[in-house]
């Protein structure tokens, strides 16, 4: 697998779009958190009522929740990256050439799945570093308490990236995959649980079971926590995690099966 990843590295190294998207993601993580950080500071300066007693959203340990939630809004970027890396192969027909030159179909799809894990892990590291820096700059004492949110963020990234990969494998065209990924993630994925809401009340997973929504359920909205909890009824994270794992297994199974069985 190491050799196969080296080949992927050769493909990525010269691919400018990859580096631009990756840099944009890093900049956006810093940017979106800085925006909410400065709004939060201004609000705190004018009315000291919000966030009193429990510590501010940008102080340890709460910052782990705050920043992972904020950053999770940007998880479409890592998804775009995997979409481009996979649809490129279809556009250039190099998915065929790689097989012709001597990769097995399984090797080809497995290395892409590995790439998805690496992209999710890298995104998580970016967010971890950004969170640690913001927290330290804000002046509170660093603590690993609340670090489970980094783990949740990793699972969330993995779900977003693997879902994007599935779309890329099915649609083969970058524009189509990006469009559907975006519309699906922003609208359809949220609308279906909304429609089914009345049947879902009282279920332990609440409304969180859709491919992307369930991952969002791992990272609760960090502001105005007490009021929000009552309205949204956030699901038990372990149930969410269980559903996420099921989706991850499904994405692997589907991707491998699809690439092994079809005409390329």
């Amino acid at each position, binding site marked *: 697998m190491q050799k196969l990843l080296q080949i992927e590295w050769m493909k990525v190294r*010269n691919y400018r779009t990859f580096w631009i998207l990756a840099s944009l993601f890093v900049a956006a993580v810093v940017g979106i958190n800085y925006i909410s950080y400065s709004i939060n500071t201004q609000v705190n300066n004018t009315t000291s009522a919000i966030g009193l007693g429990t510590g501010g959203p940008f102080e340890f340990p709460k910052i782990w929740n705050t920043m992972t939630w904020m950053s999770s809004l940007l998880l479409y970027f890592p998804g775009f990256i995997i979409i481009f890396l996979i649809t490129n192969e279809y556009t250039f027909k190099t998915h065929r050439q790689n*097989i012709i030159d001597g990769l097995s179909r399984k090797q080809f799809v497995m290395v892409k799945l590995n790439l998805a894990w690496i992209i999710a892990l890298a995104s998580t590291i970016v967010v971890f570093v950004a969170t640690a820096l913001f927290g330290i700059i804000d002046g509170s004492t660093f603590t690993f308490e609340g670090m489970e949110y980094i783990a949740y963020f990793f699972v969330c990234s993995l779900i977003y990236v693997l879902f994007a990969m599935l779309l890329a494998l099915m649609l083969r065209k970058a524009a189509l995959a990006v469009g559907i990924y975006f519309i699906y993630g922003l609208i359809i994925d949220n609308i279906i649980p909304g429609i089914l809401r009345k049947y879902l009340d009282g279920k332990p997973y609440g409304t969180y079971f859709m491919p992307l929504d369930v991952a969002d359920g791992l990272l609760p909205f960090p502001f105005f926590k007490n009021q929000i909890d009552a309205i949204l009824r956030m699901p038990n994270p372990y149930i969410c995690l269980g559903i996420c794992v099921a989706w991850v297994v499904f994405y692997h199974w589907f991707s491998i099966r699809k690439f092994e069985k079809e005409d390329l």
Partner: protein
Amino acid sequence: MNYVLEINNLSKNYGSVQALNNVSYKVPAGTVFGILGPNGSGKTTMLGIIMDILRATSGGIQLFGETPTAEHRRRMGTLLETPNFYHYMSAVDNLKIAAAIKGVDNPDIEGVLKKVNLFERKDSKFQTFSLGMKQRLAIASCLLGNPEVLVFDEPTNGLDPVGIAEIRTLIKAVAQEGKTIIMASHLLDEVEKVCTHVAIMKKGTLLASGSVDEILANDDMAETGAANTAQLMQVLSSMPGQTKVEAGLNGKVNVHFPIGTANLAQLNQHCFNHGIVLDHLQMKKKSLEAKFLEMTN
């Protein structure tokens, strides 16, 4: 005899379209094997199945006498349909990827680029290449690691006349090294000039396969005519050296001889000696093209 490739009852359907219908043949090691057929005859589909990028509906193949694996494909250099490379990467970087996949340590990238006259453009991006250059890069990629078997699908596609001649010379040179070459083409002339063996396909079925001499046998044929056609045929049948006498067009009679042995003076003399005066005598070379059209129509 060793076979590089054996195809057994291979069929492939695309929905209701049958692209391959129960095709079987064998490619002996060390031959230059041409797969000849008009557009849409199933040549590329068949090579696609051999290379595991298409799934056969039924039947199977063997490579080097074994069930095919990715490992076997690494021992073959293949150009299938179009040159497939990463557009944003240079010729050298593309070949590095191909070599890494093939498992070639220390690939002679400069050497293969020189062989196809692309060395000066080695650092140019693939997307800046002309069609002919792309095709030559694909052939360079096939040569990486000096594989035992080369598979070319329309290797001279998109090349100018000089390029075509160069590639044919290259193929012949490679064949002289004892390598097996499998080449699909719709150009008869190409197959005739380069191949030792041929399989002829039409609409997914195999019409014939064997050595080029056998299949595309080019014999000498003389067209004759006389007042009494029946008597002419009888007299010609008695002539030594002829291989076949048949009725031709417009009451003419065609007589065949092994290639290079027809002698019109002898033929005329023979008829005259047997009481026939010819009113028509003409040498007709049956072209490969006529043969091919005859087989595929």
